[in-house]
Structure formats: C-alpha cells, structure tokens
C-alpha cells in the first residue's frame, strides 16, 4: 500500500484522518490537551463542504455530533477526561439508539481537572463503560503518530459497521508529539471507506431495529422518506418505547452480542520481539514507545523481553493475551495509571501474578524504569 510522509502532531493527524475518512461534521468544546484537533478541523472541514461548530459545552458537542450522525454524516468530537465525563450520558444514548460517531479522547491526568497539560492513561476503564447500563464499547488506542491517523480512519469504518460510538484514545504525549509519520494516501483511505448499511425497500416495510441477534440496527439517514422513532428508552423494531419483557431483553442482549460475537473484526494488536520472549511487557499508547526502547536495551544485555501492545483496547484481545501468558512466566504491565489494564490482563490470563509498573504523576515512564523493573522480576 502506498504511503505518504507527513510531519505533524498526533492531534493534527487525528483531525486530518477524520476529514480524509469522510467526516463532514465536528462539534466540540475547547479542552486541553485536545484543542488542536478542533483548531485543525475547523480549518479543514469548511474546505470540503463540512461544518465545524464550537458548542457551548461538552454535552452540546456530542449532542450535535449525534444529530449529524442521525442525518447520515460521519461526525467527530474530540475532548479529554473531564469532557468524556460530561459526554457520558450522551454516549449511552448513542449506544442505545445506535448512532455511529467517533470520539477522540486525548488523555490527561485525572480525576476532575487533574493535570490538564500532563500525560496520563487514566481513562482506560472509563472508555470501557463511560455511561450506565449494558453495552459493549469499542475503543482504540494509538501508539504512534501514524496510528493517530490510521486508527481514526478505522474508527469511522468500525462505527458505521457496528452503528455505535467508537472511542480513539490518544494520550497527551502522543497528541502533542511532533514528528514524521508514514500514513496511507488519501486515495487508499477513501477506497477503504465502508459506508453504513441502509434499507432501500418500500418505506412501510422499514423496521430499523428489527435485525438479527448479533447485527446492528439499520438506520437510514433522516429526511429521506423513511420514518422511525429515535429514543434512549428501550424500544421495539420501529424504535417506539416499550417495556415488553422479551423485546427489552433482546435489545440489550443484541447491543452486547453485535460486538461480542464479532470481536475478530475489531481486534488489533502489535507483537514486538515476542517470538522467543521470556518476559512479556504489555503496554499501549505512548508508553509502548518507551517499552520498545527498553526491550532493545534488555536484549543487548541478554534478557529476552518482548512487547504485546493492544491497539484495540476494548474489547481486549483476551485470547491472544492468554496464549502468550500461558507460555511466558514473567508478565509486566506498564501504564500511566494504577493498573487499569493490569486488571484486564489478569482476567484474560487467569493469573494473579501479573506484575505492574505504574505512574500517575503526569510524567512519562522512561525506558530505564522499565529496564530496572524487568531486571527485578
């Protein structure tokens, strides 16, 4: 596949990716360290006939994006932890009513106002269940500048495939990192766009929420002659609110199963020096860059370390993690929080002896810290 070289930042690449992937709407609110996504896209979108609106707050931002999604447009919002907290309820609505959209969350220190200009990976668990109730989140985490581009593109396609929000996590380090990235050409990206399914039969036979037990709803863009009800309540095949026992059960089970039974379609991970590894490091986002550097040092000293990097964070590549942890005794999870993914690795591995190296002071983890920790194992 042809690539092009670009010198940019993670935040800027996320904005460019959205526009290349056919995004026509952005609704957002200034929030450090994600604001550059809005700055860049507010410049790019008008040039392609799109619209970028700065809303009055974070909730307004995602609501406008849901509106744009309902009329059939690819739509993006970008924020950071406090904004995710405010958007949580509407993310639930988008899960329930099955509206595709993409949220870029550039993670900063939390909780609350936290460390606005410092790096963190504290939103891992939040991105699994941002809103109340049962549904299955899809979350990607970019581990390089190029992935700030490719994962946002993938997020739009996956959102349209599963008809639900997709969260792309950047952390402050990746978001503000400035450097060269090899990214796919616009032609390749556009050729890879898979638009959402629509129903083109007669309007009276259209039931948007009548679908197989593991398939997403088929929501035709509004204002095109197909009528349906749109609600956050439990609903029937027309979308009308209902409390009918079996309909309610089926609906929520379907929201789970449409992703759970097709995890292979979204699964994505990277294995680095894992073939002969005696020590497995699990890291994602900017930390994985430090982990790779540490592995080079460790290998030079004769310690066979390897990196397993989940790119799709949720649903987690649990089977693959187990495959490795069944063979490798020493496993170390390195992350910028107090073990949010560590718990998931423990669960996937069904082992309680998974080691962790955590940091929550807003500073990155250096390769030497990882080297020293691995030597202690």
């Amino acid at each position, binding site marked *: 596949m042809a690539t092009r070289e670009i010198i940019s930042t993670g935040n800027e690449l996320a904005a460019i990716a959205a526009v290349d992937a056919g995004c026509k709407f952005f609704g957002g609110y200034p929030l450090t360290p994600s*604001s550059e996504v*809005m*700055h860049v896209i507010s410049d790019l979108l008008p040039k392609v006939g799109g619209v970028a609106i700065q809303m009055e*707050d974070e909730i307004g931002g995602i609501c406008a994006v849901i509106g744009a999604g309902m009329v059939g447009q690819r739509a993006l919002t970008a924020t950071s932890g406090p904004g995710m907290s405010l958007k949580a309820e509407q993310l639930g609505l988008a899960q329930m009513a099955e509206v595709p959209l993409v949220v870029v969350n550039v993670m900063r220190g939390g909780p609350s106002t936290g460390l606005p200009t410092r790096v963190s990976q504290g939103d891992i668990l939040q991105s699994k269940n941002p809103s109340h109730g049962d549904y299955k989140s899809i979350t990607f985490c970019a581990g390089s500048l190029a992935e700030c581009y490719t994962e946002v593109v993938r997020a739009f396609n996956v959102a349209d495939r599963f008809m639900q929000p997709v969260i792309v996590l950047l952390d402050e380090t990746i978001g503000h990192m400035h450097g060269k990235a090899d990214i796919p050409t616009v032609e390749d990206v556009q050729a890879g766009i898979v638009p959402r399914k629509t129903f083109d039969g007669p309007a009276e036979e259209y039931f948007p929420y009548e679908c197989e037990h593991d398939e997403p709803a088929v929501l035709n863009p509004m204002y095109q002659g197909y009528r349906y009800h749109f609600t956050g309540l439990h609903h029937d095949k027309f979308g009308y609110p209902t409390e009918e026992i079996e309909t309610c059960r089926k609906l929520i089970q379907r929201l789970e199963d449409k992703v759970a039974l097709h995890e292979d379609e979204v699964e994505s991970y990277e294995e680095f020096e894992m073939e002969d590894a005696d020590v497995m490091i699990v890291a994602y986002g900017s930390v994985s860059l430090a982990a790779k550097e540490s592995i080079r040092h460790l290998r030079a000293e004769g310690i066979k370390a390897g990196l397993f990097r989940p790119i799709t964070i949720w649903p987690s590549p649990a089977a693959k993690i187990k495959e490795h942890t069944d063979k490798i005794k020493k496993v170390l999870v390195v992350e910028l929080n107090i073990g949010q993914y560590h718990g998931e690795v423990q669960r996937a591995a069904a082992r309680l002896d998974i080691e962790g190296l955590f940091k929550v002071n807003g500073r990155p983890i250096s390769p030497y810290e990882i080297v020293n920790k691995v030597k202690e194992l």
Partner: protein
Amino acid sequence: MSEIKKIKNLKEFSTSADRFEGANLLCPGCAHSIIVREVLNATNDDLILSAATGCLEVCTAVYPYTSWDASWIHIGFENGSTAVAGAEAMHKALKRKGRLKQDRDPKFVSFAGDGASYDIGFQWISGCFERGHNMMHVVLDNEVYANTGGQRSSSTPIGSSATTSPAGRISYGEKKNKKDMLAIMAAHGSPYVAQVAPNKWKNMIKAIQHGFEAEGPVFINAMSACTTEWKFAPEDTIAISDLATDSLVFPLYEIIDGQKLNITYRPKNVVPVEEYLAAQGRFKHLFKDQYKYLIKEWQERVDQKWDYLQRREEASV
C-alpha cells in the same frame, strides 16, 4: 448589615494586598488581578470565594503558593457559582440552627471567565439566580477562552479573530454578536446586575458595594482586557479599557431589580469605535478593504445600543 467600607484613594485601594496577593502567574498587563483585588477590597467582611477553571484559577494557585488570603474553592469549569451557592445555603442553615460561633455574615462571591459563565456554566448560574442565593457572580469578561488557547466564546464580538473562528481570506473571524448576559441575568429578577470596567474604578467600587449590600443573587460583568488574546502591549491595559468604555463598545450601566436601568458612566468625549478596534491585533484584519464595512456596522450597532440604553434609562423601565 455590615458597614460599607470607605475607600480613600486608588493607590491604597488597589495596592493593598490583604486578600489577594500580587504575586501570581497572570500575564503582565492582565486585568484579572486588578478586578479581583478591587472586588475583595471593597468589603471588610469575611469572604467565601470560588473560581471556576480558567486563567484566574490556574495562575493564582500554583503549588506551593497561593494568592488568596480568604476561603477559596476551585471547582470544575462549569459550576463555580453552584459551589458558592452550596456554601451559602449551608451557612444559612447553620445560622438558623444557632450553630455558628460568630454571627458575622460572610460575602459569597464566585469568579468565572466568560467561557465559564456565558457558555458551559450558564445553566448553573441561572439555577443560582432562580433559587435566589445571597451571592455575587463576577464574570472576568475577556471575550475569549484565554486559558485553553484563545478559542471563541459566546462573549466574543463579531469580527474578532480567535483560534476556532480565525480570520483570513474567506472569513472575517467570529460571526455572531456577543451574548447580552446582563439582560438575561436581569430577566431572572436579580436585585442588581451591573457592567463594570477596571479603568473606571470608582464606578466599579460603587457597583460592587451596591451588589454586596443587595439581598439576593448579584451579577457583575467586568471587562477584563486580555493582552495576550486581544493582542496589545501589556502596558496598555487601562488605555484599551478607556477606549472600550469611551467608545461605548462596553457601556457601563446597572439594572436594579430586573427593571430600573441606570447608565453609570457617560463619556465626555465619545471616541469612534474604529479607534478601539485599531488598538488591538485581534481586529487587525477589519482594516483591510474587504472587511471595512464591518467597522461601520459596528459603529451603528454601538450607537443603537447606546440609544436603547438611554431610552430605557429615561423611561425608568
């Protein structure tokens, strides 16, 4: 009711650092510190304060230092007003039950920028005013999200260039007119709302003391010229503020009990709006031929508003 503090002269008044220290990280020339100190110095009463996230909060409480010598709460972006409202409600309850050691009533003040007041914090302020808490909400109105990189807010005036409404070949910048918050807050039936500016300090003190004496929620919109985002030299803050009030772009007036409007400052020599715009980098592009018509429109808007304010004052409604 507490005694009104006598203010002798500007020097004593604005340099007294009893409650708000000068050592902070605000930009040189920032009007925030002038306004905040003058608000706090306007009373001898105890103070319970909050600051929403913004320049003021970020720059006045940098570990291990603080500029605040009063009870001070920093809370989220949107709800500085509600934090103070909660404190005020609790104070009232404890007083009613006789559980306070002293019977002095403190003053409850929330500070927030225009982003945190006009946009994200709007419904919370509205709630406080509807419930009628005995508090004052002070907007440090610099017409932009200065803390997060200069994005437009709904206080940003037409034609201003901001990072999310940039001016260029296609656009003249912000397309929407500034939200009339004073009218909205007056419509809540507030006993006192006023627009003030730090260059007219006597006027400002009068308004703030009036606000402190009023029973109920009081709204003060204080113009805070922003050297960084408005793009002028730091030493010109007061000069720019003078141009704003004297060109009537930022008229100073008050509305009592949601009804009676008084103009509190009438410039002897009204300067053209053009002079105010020309002094700031954020309006630089308006002086290109293609956008010059906007300056004329702006002057007409200012004249209309001034005419409206005068007629309302005269009609006493």
